[in-house]
């Protein structure tokens, strides 16, 4: 047997081919054909794929942040060409850079929110989310009984150890440990009150929940390929082309605010928003993660997020946390502010307030 192998190796220089080599070549050729076929099949067969080559190139492109300017331009041109053909309307994919000296924060007045879900629908329209099969919403509105709310202003700055009736032999009772100064428990909350329900119900608070844009985001730590990262403005974004769809980030998110595209997103061409950003609202594909980006396509141009503009009662405020004169900073300074309990010290930049 070993002699046979040696003989075959010796014959490599000759033109003669063994049956084994022949079958090997056939195998390589077959595998290459299959790979090329699958690479050009990124777009469903029934869609008017303008350029299979560009799709294959998209599959092979690197992380957008690490690309040269020329490669970025090429990548964006490819996407614009494909989206324009697929949705039959001129589509732009911006690569507007982050703003200088800005750290975005968001504040939502739960005393004002009426639970109308206009923010949810504005978000869906602005960010090209899948409309049906499956439905994807980046904002969920919770309806929490007002009875769950407890607040005692006089104890707000308590929390220092008090003398215990048992003596202070190493046992100290924190002022807030047994009598919390205030909070809103989510038990008995509903997040699926029906769409035709009359709102607001006077016995409930409405609490919209979306990505909390953590300053120390666990999702970013969990991503094995750094497809999701925190941008200089403090917004966590995703390179959809670099995402491998492992869903580790979804598991890591303490608010479960990320959505995975289990199927090909269903976005009717007539409803598609053609003004997109590479890291924001450009149409996603099957097998990638998506989430709220504070409307990066708008905020990097100095505009407000779509949910804020849609809110009919002005419950949403957005601004620069580095600027003491911004709405968010003023709210932090003067209002009763709540945030989700920081079990993991994630430092969310999304706050809830009353007043």
């Amino acid at each position, binding site marked *: 047997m070993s002699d046979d192998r040696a003989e075959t190796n010796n014959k490599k220089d000759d033109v003669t081919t063994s049956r084994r080599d022949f079958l090997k070549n056939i195998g390589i050729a077959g595998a290459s054909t299959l790979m090329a076929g699958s690479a050009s099949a990124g777009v469903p067969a029934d869609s008017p794929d303008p350029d299979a080559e560009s799709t294959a190139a998209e599959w092979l492109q690197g992380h957008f942040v690490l690309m040269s300017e020329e490669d970025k331009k090429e990548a964006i041109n490819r996407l614009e060409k494909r989206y324009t053909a697929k949705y039959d309307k001129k589509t732009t994919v911006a690569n507007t850079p982050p703003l200088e000296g800005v750290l975005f924060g968001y504040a939502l007045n739960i005393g004002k929110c009426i639970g109308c879900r206009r923010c949810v629908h504005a978000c869906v329209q602005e960010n090209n989310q899948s409309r049906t099969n*499956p439905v994807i919403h980046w904002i*969920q509105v919770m309806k929490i009984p007002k009875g769950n709310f407890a607040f005692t202003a006089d104890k*707000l700055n308590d929390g220092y150890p008090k003398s215990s009736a048992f003596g202070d032999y190493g046992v100290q009772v924190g002022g807030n440990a047994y009598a*919390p100064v205030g*909070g809103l428990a989510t038990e008995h909350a509903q997040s699926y009150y029906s769409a035709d329900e009359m709102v607001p119900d006077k016995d409930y608070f409405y609490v919209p929940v979306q990505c909390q844009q953590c300053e120390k985001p666990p999702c970013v730590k969990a991503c094995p390929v750094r497809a999701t990262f925190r941008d200089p403005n403090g917004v966590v974004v995703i390179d959809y082309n670099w995402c491998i769809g492992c869903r580790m980030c979804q598991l890591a998110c303490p608010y479960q605010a990320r*959505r995975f595209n289990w199927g090909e997103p269903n976005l009717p061409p007539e409803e598609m928003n053609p003004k997109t950003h590479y890291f924001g609202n450009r149409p996603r594909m099957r097998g990638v993660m998506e989430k709220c980006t504070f409307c990066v396509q708008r905020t990097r141009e100095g505009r407000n997020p779509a949910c804020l503009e849609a809110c009919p009662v002005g419950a949403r405020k957005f601004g620069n*946390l580095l600027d003491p004169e911004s709405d968010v900073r003023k709210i932090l*300074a003067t209002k009763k502010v*709540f*945030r989700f309990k920081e079990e993991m010290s994630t430092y969310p930049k999304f706050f809830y307030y009353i007043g």
Partner: protein
Amino acid sequence: MIKADKSKRTFFKKVAAVVGFVAAADYLGNLMSVRGNPIQQANDNSEYDVNKQKKVLLQKQLVSMTDNDKKQMLDELLDIHNKNHA
């Protein structure tokens, strides 16, 4: 000539085999129909994700921030931001 075994034990054995076969076929059928309907599967998975978020959020609590909390948080946020941009 071999006589057919008509004992009670053989009868139950056959019944068990038939029940097992039917159950396996039903399971495979279900598996195939789910796999054959990717839209349904995608919808089910997405719904599962949303329900999971609901479960997680129902265990959360919005806590009020004291002035100290606010200051500490703001200092921390600005500190992290400044370190990142140093």
